[in-house]
């Protein structure tokens, strides 16, 4: 964690230009330039390189068709490398089976993702893997987890004459990176790694070979069929391959694709837009982004240095480092349905216009290579298979410098569902960071960030196939070079300006402030005006842009690169829902907490690597705020995983989603009044929340509901962190307001609030010396105001981690003030009194609960680090203030407070034992159905062994039913309604229904028992453990039940298990009623 703070410090210094003299420890000097400007610098450099390469490529690319073919073949796979760098078997060796698998437009990656149930068998032992692979042809593989190595391995079927028929190749997981041991190539997730290995053997003896059934599948449905078999695939008919398949020679295969490719390219609807057009395209939804790619090359032997970016940036740095990195900035893409006049006048707006080749834009000149790629790869003339990510360029070989994904497929099918389109888009745009930036990673000769598209939304393709909208909307790709270029040149100018100014800034007493205010207001006039024409979305996660050593020499801490994105609002309504998904708190806040990113609290050892990331966003944020969720899918692996978990949490068809939603609605019941009723204190409320988060994390780790498994997306040592983050978004974000209110309510009720305020007033009146501040000058009112501002920003955040980050900023500011005034360093002897004084001066009683919130909800693993330290100090200081009178009298804290501290520590440090989910299964959502007034639903706390009779009592009470004897609890599944016998256990029924492979929606409804004569008891299964009385109900007014989900599909198999035999009602027409909860 402290490394991230370090990172932050450095930036503070750079941006504030004033702290270096007062810092506790001097960072490496010589960098007075804002990181943002370094980024821009890298852009500028990269542009130069690209231009050069464009020329080169144009001059010497004799086989465009082949390359295009490769691109198509590669599908979602991006591959790029400096031409001079030997890639081993790289693309050159890619002539074999990998290509065969890509006959249709589904990329290898698509196939892999969709069929991971077949090849991703983490639970298999080596023996089992051998058994499976032995009959398979050479090159067939499985990915499993070796128990001896405690790592994932690719189990590969070796050649027939090999001594070891099946060999394991370990996968190295580092900071968001997956790579094969011994290889310098790193990938953002397992799928990409495997996909790459299907194309290029890298360190493997040969390329991976997908089973023919998978590689030759023509449609996603075929793949789905295969996926259904899971591990059973290998023993099935499909899994038995003919040996002949094993050895395919190719080389010519790629060219087979060329004709169709060329045909397709004719229809490229590429357009360019100017920033101003973007600006006004709110409703038209142009999209743009800057997609930086990073490629780092180690040159231990000093060879292959033709592409040394260092030479540009900092030549002498090159000398002391064998590391050189190439950063590639990607061009923007726009997508719009608006065929209106486009900027630069270069390119026809008309979709499917062959003449609209953006090659014309070369005078814009930013992204030559990529552009030409995108041009040549237009959307296919017919809708692609839903699962397939649209083909996109995969620059190979010489086209190395511009790996980008440009693909925008405008099929109506895709528009149907925002999320699926989103993920597809995102996947086509995502860029993976490279692990080679990690100083800890083993020396690598070459590391390539190879972004490969991966559709995240893995729900059944059948859903997506439903055409709902006429294909009247066309999306255009637009590459606005000029926008970026303008921004860059402007920024460069500004950078030099800033540099010139920096000496005079030297006395700025609060450097850290400079940067965050600058970021927050964004409006600080001088910055990057042209960019104000755009919306820039920045990744809230800390890992955004990379500043690697070679590229940004002054930054000692390399970090993985990621994607930054620019985007405009959604295209149409279908997309607008995505905005809801874009729930980065910072976006709602208006403040820019994500400028905290470099100060984010992170488990020790984790953060330093992630943190590097500063970013465009700080400098541009204000201008580029208009970001929508559309580009959310330009996600880092972390973000994608978080999103995946969030999607699951909203899916009440999943057990996880059900637990989460039940819990949320339980707490939110009655607008928060429930919370106050059900918890004895604010502390208890927070503890319950923390427990829930911990348990859900534990459940997610153990269950297989996440699909694809999170282990395939996130390196294992990151999983907990990512899940924690996801749970904060899922639970804390929606509950934040309610929790804050409840905490305050508790405090007011207990009288603590009044006492706190009194004491705070008393403490505020004290002189610094009376508060224990000795040799140092206290902050002046202006500084106090600054601190107050930071604190109020902190109060608005929901994430305890981000709150702590904000707290750390305040602490940093206090230190800065202390040090600036005296020139020495201060330990706790001076700091703690000062912190107490400052807290008193701030006069913000709400901070007491804020600190409590952080103390109780912060990830326990962070409590020992810097965040934990300063949080502890803040808590201590606040305790002193809270007990100010008492302390004045007795000079010690009450024993009560000490006990509290004691308990807190014990609780928070022993809590880490894995909890069970059980406690949170205790919610049941029940709808009250009245003939006249429709339906109201409540989430009730129901113990697992509460009988239906007891639940009925609770319902009668909660719904205030006057005549409970006439009511009963019914279970509604699709088309049927059954009254539950009084001695059944609703929670068990719920669990049973959830545990089915094919979960159908079901609802518990509390309603008036129909006239007994109408009630036809159709069956009674005495052997059923659940002992459900089955009945049909002919009341036609079920349509009144309106909840969140609509389920219009009438003829689904209920999939009832024997233990819960239901009889379907005779009147099937009812099933068309939409009932959902």
């Amino acid at each position, binding site marked *: 964690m402290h490394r991230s703070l370090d990172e932050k410090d450095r930036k503070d210094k750079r941006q504030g230009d004033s702290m270096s003299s007062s810092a506790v420890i001097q960072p490496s000097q010589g960098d007075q330039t804002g990181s943002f400007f370094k980024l821009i610098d890298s852009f500028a450099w990269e542009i130069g390189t690209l231009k050069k390469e464009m020329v080169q490529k144009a001059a010497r690319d004799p086989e465009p068709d082949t390359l295009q073919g490769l691109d198509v073949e590669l599908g979602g796979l991006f591959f790029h490398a400096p031409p001079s760098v030997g890639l081993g078997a790289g693309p050159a060796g890619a002539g074999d089976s990998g290509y065969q698998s890509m006959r249709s437009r589904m990329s290898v990656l698509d196939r892999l993702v969709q069929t991971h149930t077949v090849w991703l068998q983490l639970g298999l032992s080596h023996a089992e893997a051998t058994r499976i692979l032995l009959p398979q042809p050479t090159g067939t593989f499985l990915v499993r987890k070796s128990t001896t190595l*405690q790592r994932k391995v690719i189990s590969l079927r070796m050649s027939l004459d090999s001594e070891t028929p099946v060999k394991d190749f370990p996968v190295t997981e580092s900071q968001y990176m997956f790579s094969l041991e011994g290889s310098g190539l790193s990938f953002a997730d397992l799928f990409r790694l495997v996909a790459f290995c299907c194309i290029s053997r890298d360190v493997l003896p040969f390329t991976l070979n997908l089973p023919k059934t998978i590689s030759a599948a023509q449609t996603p449905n075929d793949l789905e069929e295969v996926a259904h078999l*899971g591990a059973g695939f290998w023993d099935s008919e499909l899994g038995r391959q003919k040996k002949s398949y094993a050895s395919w020679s190719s080389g010519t295969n790629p060219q087979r694709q060329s004709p169709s490719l060329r045909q397709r390219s004719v229809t490229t609807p590429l357009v360019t837009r100017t920033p101003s057009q973007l600006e006004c395209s709110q409703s038209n939804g142009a999209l743009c982004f800057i997609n930086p790619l990073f490629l780092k090359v180690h040159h231990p032997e000093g060879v292959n240095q033709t592409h040394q970016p260092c030479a540009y940036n900092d030549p002498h740095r090159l000398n002391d480092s064998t590391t050189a990195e190439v950063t590639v900035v990607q061009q923007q893409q726009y997508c719009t349905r608006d065929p209106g006049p486009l900027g630069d006048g270069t390119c026809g707006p008309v979709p499917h216009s062959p003449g609209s080749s953006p090659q014309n834009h070369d005078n814009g000149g930013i992204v030559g290579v990529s552009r030409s790629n995108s041009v040549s790869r237009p959307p296919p003339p017919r809708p692609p298979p839903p699962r397939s990510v649209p083909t996109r360029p995969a620059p190979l070989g010489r086209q190395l410098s511009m790996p980008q994904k440009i693909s925008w497929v405008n099929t109506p099918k895709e528009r149907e569902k925002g999320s699926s389109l989103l993920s597809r888009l995102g996947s086509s745009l995502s860029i993976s960071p490279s692990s080679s930036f990690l100083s800890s990673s083993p020396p690598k000769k070459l590391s390539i960030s190879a972004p490969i598209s991966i559709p995240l939304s893995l729900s059944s393709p*059948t859903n997506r196939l439903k055409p709902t909208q006429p294909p009247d909307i066309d999306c255009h790709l637009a590459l606005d070079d000029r926008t970026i270029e303008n921004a860059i040149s402007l920024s460069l100018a500004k950078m030099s300006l800033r540099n010139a100014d920096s000496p005079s800034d030297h006395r700025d007493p609060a450097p850290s402030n400079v940067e965050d205010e600058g970021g927050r207001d964004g409006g600080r006039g001088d910055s990057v005006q042209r960019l104000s024409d755009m919306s820039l979305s920045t990744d809230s996660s800390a890992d955004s842009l990379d500043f690697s050593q070679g590229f940004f020499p002054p930054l000692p801490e390399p970090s993985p690169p990621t994607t930054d994105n620019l985007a405009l609002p959604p295209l149409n309504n279908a997309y607008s829902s995505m905005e809801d998904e874009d729930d980065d708190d910072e976006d709602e806040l208006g403040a820019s907490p994500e400028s905290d990113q470099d100060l984010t609290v992170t488990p020790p050892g984790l953060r330093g690597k992630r943190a590097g990331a500063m970013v465009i966003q700080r400098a541009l944020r204000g201008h580029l705020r208009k970001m929508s969720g559309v580009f959310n899918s330009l996600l880092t692996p972390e973000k994608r995983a978080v999103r995946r978990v969030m999607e699951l949490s909203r899916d009440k068809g999943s057990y996880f989603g059900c637990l989460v939603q039940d819990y949320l609605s339980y707490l939110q019941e009655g607008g928060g009044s429930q919370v106050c009723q059900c918890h004895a204190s604010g502390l208890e409320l927070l503890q319950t929340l923390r427990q829930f988060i911990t348990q859900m994390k534990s459940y997610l780790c153990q269950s297989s509901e996440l699909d694809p498994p999170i282990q395939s997306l996130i390196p294992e040592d990151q999983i907990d962190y990512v899940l924690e983050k996801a749970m904060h978004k899922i639970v804390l974000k929606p509950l934040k307001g309610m929790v804050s209110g409840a905490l305050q309510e508790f405090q007011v009720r207990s009288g603590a609030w009044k006492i706190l305020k009194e004491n705070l007033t008393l403490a505020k009146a004290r002189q610094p010396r009376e508060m224990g501040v000795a040799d140092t000058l206290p902050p002046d009112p202006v500084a106090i105001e600054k601190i107050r501002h930071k604190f109020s920003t902190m109060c608005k955040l929901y994430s305890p981690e981000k709150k702590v980050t904000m707290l750390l900023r305040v602490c940093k500011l206090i230190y800065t003030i202390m040090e600036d005034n005296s020139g020495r360093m201060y*330990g*706790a002897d001076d700091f703690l009194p000062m912190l107490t004084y400052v807290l008193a001066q701030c006069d913000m009683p709400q901070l007491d609960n804020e600190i409590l919130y952080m103390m109780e909800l912060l990830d326990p693993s962070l409590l020992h680090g810097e965040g934990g330290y300063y949080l502890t100090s803040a*808590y201590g200081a606040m305790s002193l203030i809270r007990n100010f009178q008492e302390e004045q009298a007795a000079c010690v804290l009450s024993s009560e407070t000490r006990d509290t501290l004691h308990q807190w520590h014990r609780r928070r440090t022993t809590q880490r034992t894995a909890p069970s989910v059980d406690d949170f299964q205790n919610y049941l959502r029940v709808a009250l159905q009245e003939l006249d007034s429709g339906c109201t639903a409540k989430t009730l706390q129901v113990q697992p062994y509460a009988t239906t009779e007891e639940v009925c009592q609770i319902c009668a009470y909660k719904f205030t039913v006057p005549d409970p004897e006439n009511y009963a609890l019914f279970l509604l599944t699709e088309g049927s309604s059954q009254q539950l016998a009084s001695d059944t256990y609703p929670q068990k029924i719920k669990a049973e229904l959830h545990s089915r492979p*094919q979960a159908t929606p079901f609802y518990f409804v509390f309603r008036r028992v129909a006239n007994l004569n109408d009630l036809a008891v159709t069956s009674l299964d005495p052997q059923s453990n659940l002992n459900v009385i089955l009945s049909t109900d002919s009341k036609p007014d079920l349509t009144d039940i309106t909840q969140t989900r609509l389920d219009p599909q009438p003829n689904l198999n209920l999939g009832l298990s024997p233990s819960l035999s239901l009889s379907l009602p005779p009147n099937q027409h009812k099933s068309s009623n939409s009932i959902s909860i």
Partner: protein
Amino acid sequence: KMAIRELKVCLLGDTGVGKSSIVCRFVQDHFDHNISPTIGASFLTKTVPCGHELHKFLIWDTAGQERFHSLAPMYYRGSAAAVIVYDITRLDSFQTLKKWVKELKEHGPDDIVVAIAGNKNDLGDIREVPMKEAKDFAESIAAIFIETSARNAVNVDELFQKISKQIPPLDNPEVDSNESFKITRQPPPSNKRCC
């Protein structure tokens, strides 16, 4: 590849005895350009090799004033080690040290490593606390004892080395903790709907 072990170390002692000076010296002397300053000097970290492990000291400074005494439990809870610092030129700081020892014995973690550091030994001519007395006291409680001079960088590294040595090595790195990685993935239901 060595495992990094994080060790929380709590600094106790009267105000003005040089607690933070010792830590600053410890952290600064081997200035690693990869480790830049943290928020402030109250919390500093430093990683040192120890046998087959890397020990990352997370050093929690405390305020020595009496009024903050009651907060100390929050700081020393969960600490692997406590460094109690006194000033050899101030007898009262040694008396305070004894109080800390007592409190740690009563309320501190059971297995906490206690180190006693007599700081400012560069000021031997105005010494008030005889080294022998302090050393005997340390022995009586089985604590590490060392006299240091943060100003002259004397014995600062040694202090932490001694602590490192007293930290019991991790015998069994949890090998089997990941064992329960069972994933038998079910084929996704074909008609699974998503809302």
